[in-house]
């Protein structure tokens, strides 16, 4: 049971980090979430 919970937690954390990376470089919107001073960045529409 404990191992299942660990697997779910670790996979969720990994997926979330991967999604963040993808969104930062290839997504339509980006937001500074990696530092203590956040601002919304709205990219140009193609």
């Amino acid at each position, binding site marked *: 049971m*404990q191992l299942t919970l660990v697997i779910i937690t670790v996979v969720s954390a990994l997926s979330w980090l991967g999604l963040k990376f993808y969104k930062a470089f290839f997504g339509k919107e*980006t*937001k*500074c979430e*990696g*530092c203590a001073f*956040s601002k919304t960045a709205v990219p*140009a529409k193609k």
Partner: protein
Amino acid sequence: MDKTFHKIALVGNPNTGKTSVFNRLTGLNQHVGNFPGVTVDRKTGKMKAGDRLIDLVDLPGTYSIYPRSRDEKVVYDILTDKKNPDHPDALMVVVDASNLERNLLLFTQVYDLQIPVMLILNMSDMAFRAGKKFDHAAFAKRFPGVPVVETNARIGSGMKRISEVVASGFSTEEFVPVIPDASLKGLEDRAGQDEETTRRFDFIRELVARLVTVEAGTGQSTKVSRLDKLFVHPVFGYLIFGTVLLLLFQLIFSFASYPMDMIDSVFGRLSEWTQEAMPAGVFTDLISQGIIPGLGGVIIFIPQIALLFFCLGILEETGYMARVVFIMDRLMRPFGLNGKSVVPLMSSAACAIPGVMATRTISSWKERMITIMVAPLMSCSARIPVYTLLIALVIPQKTVLGFLNLQGLVLFALYALGLISALLVALVMKWIIRSEGQSVLMLELPEFRKPRWGNVFISLLEKVRIFIFDAGKVILAVSIVLWALASYGPGDRMEQAVSRVEQPIAGNDISESEYDERVASAKLENSYIGILGKTIEPVIRPLGYDWKIGISLITSFAAREVFVGSMATIYSVHYDGEDDAGLLTRMRQEKFADGRPVYTLASGLSLMVFYVYAMQCMATLAIVKRETHSWKWPLVQILYMGVMAYIASFIVFKIFS
């Protein structure tokens, strides 16, 4: 003429309180997007006028309708092209009532476009305090049909009147042009634009002389100008700014250390309690060794972040920061960074993301690229947790020169190193990437005023909230992944390594605690993270780092402050001493295989210098890629900053070893 408006645009010079007026009129009923084709924020909202809701667009601040940057061009395009989807039915021109001479240029330009216009005299309280009185009758005589509303957006006065005027409508039926024979100049016709602007200013000077009367005996201007002579003085200005920063960093180390020690101890105990209270197993280990230490690594820095932003908030509120921008412009000019580069670089001292985005106002492409390239060298707030952890670890808590806290002095030096490096790199880049023309910084120094404590605390709470929930999420996720990588290894490699550890038996002098320590080390070194760390160790060893620091260097590519969360997780998994010991205690006890301490003055300083230079921020790289529309610039940035970080850290380590 139909006086019913559907869409109204707000225009005005920067720093006139235009956005405050917009916020007051729309309340929470607003949306941030972008103008088609350009990366410039587009704020739209709905304002109530009578029983109708009218679209309100907040256009970028500009001094003239003739643009000098991309965001100013947005205003030109929208106002001059009636087919533009954002072209408004009417305009509200927000001006600083205490400085009409400069502000009225834009008003006269848009008036001549024959779009129905309303004049909003904002900051009317300041004009009143300066003894300035506006002659409404004289204005109405010269600009018939143009309504004028006096406002103070800081407290919301005049907003009801604006809604009433919009509801009743206004028009250009009695239009009397400011410059009768002037036609709108093309974007390339700089000479024509300059000639027209000169004529307009001649008109405005005469107009203001008729419209504004100044009562004698206000006295405040003299006091302000005396203070400004000191704050923007070529020598004293920098001395005062240096002293302010020094005091700020002294405060951070003097006052924040007590709550930090308390938080450190609380999380140590919480980790121990979780281990005892929950059923034994891997999920319990994940919580007590991965999640809790990772969270503790975030929470512990709240006192310092809060104190820093509290002090910066006060400086901003009093109007002192505008003086800092002014003197920084003078400092940066010899290094090729001038004019509009100053604001992005000063913003980068908080975070490089808004700093890089603020370069959109720079019209010269090359100057913009240079500013983007050096902006991440300014010490951002994400570096504070790393700096303060390492300073507390290797710099003794003692006083120098009788009153200066040595730890605060080192933090000041790290900030200064970032600024000096940014200037020097800009100088080199200016030489490599030759720039055509230079931009000019137009800055209005606001009057000194008492800080509004509500604003200071709201801003402070916002920064702390963002630090906990935004940065915290990344640190937490990285801590979870790190814990897994530190707790498991390929095949039975960890078990084999443990079986090779010599057991404490009669005949050898290995104690039980030494045995446990060796088992924990053997497990960690043969885990996935250990194998990765050992692989990269030869590269970072010349800088004085062990493989555990190497792992944290890799994970902190996500964001710099992830370093502290990673260290907390790695040492929590490995540590076999007292369970409630804090991260600092664990790091202080860390030793190389030959018994030498890992964290010495040399390795600590080397690591701090590494973080001054290294491009350890995925979000900044992403924004640079977006702003430059190319992978080339972020790659150049990561490469040149990485090389600088490695060489500088190596030199520092060798000097202090």
